């Protein structure tokens, strides 16, 4: 039982990382109705910036984190304005192609600047475990869970408790009416991209110490994040987090108890998600299931 709980908590910690990136995907989906395939690469790039700040000027971790999240925010806002905005009125497929192009560009630029040799990324939190009621949890895992929950809480406050968040929701759902109310929907969309990238940056910086830092490091994570977002209902932030955590736990339990199937755990997890979607096509929290009444 103790070992089972330890596996569950390790799974939740890994899931928290998938959840952060899934949240980023959901934010763009809600704003534009499409998936930004470059989201993981944005996260990778910001993780590199964080690493460069830690290695070069040796700034404290908290400052490096704040700067790289801010760079992620501003960078994505600029990318939306310059590269995505001209295609905004076109077919969604065109924008999807634009995000695929961004994927390649960001990936190659990172490779060009920092090379493809994997590097270790210093974790701000010790990997040493602490004993909580007989269950061993690594401090790093606990911190990842804490950061993921904090991100979700901040997003909830933004979207549900502030005027700006309300305007962002309105602009995403009802762009024409929002314009008539004086909301600059273009600005809201840019802020949405910035916000998604900032949230995604957290996932890149949290995952980098667990895997190694290199330009292709997010390509596995984005598949998990995509699966988590779809499982949660693609348009639900809460769903993305629950989906991410559930997926993390599933993967950890398969790895621990069905070692023969360990190589198939991603396929098995995706299969489970397909079964879930057959039973419940709108996902766990999609559309009308997650609404507050």
């Amino acid at each position, binding site marked *: 039982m103790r070992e089972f709980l330890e596996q569950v908590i390790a799974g939740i910690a890994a899931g928290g990382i998938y959840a952060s990136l899934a949240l980023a995907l959901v934010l763009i989906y809600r704003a534009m109705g499409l998936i930004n395939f470059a989201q993981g690469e944005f996260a990778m790039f910001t993780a590199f910036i964080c690493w460069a700040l830690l290695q070069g000027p040796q700034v404290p971790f908290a400052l490096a984190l704040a700067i790289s999240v801010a760079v992620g925010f501003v960078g994505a806002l600029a990318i939306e304005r310059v590269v995505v905005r001209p295609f905004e009125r076109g077919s969604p497929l065109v924008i999807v192609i634009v995000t695929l192009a961004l994927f390649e560009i960001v990936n190659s630029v990172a490779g060009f600047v920092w090379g493809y040799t994997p590097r270790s990324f210093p974790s701000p939190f010790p990997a040493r475990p602490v004993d909580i009621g007989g269950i061993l949890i690594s401090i790093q895992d606990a911190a990842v869970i804490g950061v993921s929950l904090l991100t979700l809480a901040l997003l909830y406050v933004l979207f549900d408790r502030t*005027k700006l968040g*309300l*305007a962002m*929701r*309105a602009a995403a*759902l*009802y762009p*024409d*009416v*929002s*314009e*008539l*109310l*004086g*909301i*600059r*929907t273009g600005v809201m969309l840019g802020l949405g991209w910035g916000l998604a990238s900032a949230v995604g940056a957290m996932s890149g910086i949290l995952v980098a110490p667990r895997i190694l830092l290199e330009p292709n490091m997010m390509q596995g994570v984005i598949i998990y994040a995509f699966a988590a977002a779809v499982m949660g209902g693609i348009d639900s932030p809460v769903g993305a987090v629950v989906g991410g955590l559930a997926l993390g736990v599933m993967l950890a339990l398969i790895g621990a108890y069905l070692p023969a199937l360990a190589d198939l755990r991603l396929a098995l997890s995706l299969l489970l998600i397909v079964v879930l979607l057959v039973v419940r096509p709108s996902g766990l929290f999609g559309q009308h299931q997650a*609404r507050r*009444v």
Partner: protein
Amino acid sequence: MPLLDLAQVTAGYGHRRVLHEVDLSVDEGEIVAILGANGAGKTTTLRAISGVIHRVGQITFLGRSLLGSSASDTARLGIAHVPEGRGTMGQLTVAENLQLGAYVRRDRAIATDMDRVFSYFPVLKERRRQYAGTLSGGEQQMLAIARAIMARPKLVLLDEPSLGLAPLVARSIFELIGSINRDLRTAVLLVEQNAVAALDISHRAYVLEAGRVAVSGASAELRAHDRVRRSYLGY
């Protein structure tokens, strides 16, 4: 000087022109009705004013040209456009719809205004936590007007408020428009199929035919005008 002044305004969708050289004005505190058959250009006139569609000619509001203004700029200048179909944001609550009505404001009297709006529309107070999509047609129309008032606009562009409503509900909507105009001195440019009701509450009216102003004048005079009576009032 009129509050809103249109001179020789031509507008349309793509290459299809719907409005041709329209002259129209609204004074402060006035209710002006635009009457006309389907396709005459009534909705297009409102869209040309708020900048939703491309337009040429002259449009001035409070003495400044609106031609370079986007729809959101126009809203910030004090024109609230209640669009065709009411623009209900159904997945947001009634209270959220009203808060967004006040989006352009930076002052602190929004809560007070919310109470004032609830005094006009008590049913919205009861339903403020509900999703706007769950309201009836009449309630959604009330919400649309209430949301416009929350901006404290100088001018409200109101597109077919009675559309799809039962006659009694439509009548109470018109009464509310009249009392808001009297109490708050908000000017209203009203597009309406129901010519009888529109002429009853408006001070002046324009009749559009095929995108041009066919007749205009004081509403009381238009009621007696032969052509208007036969074509739009039906007696």
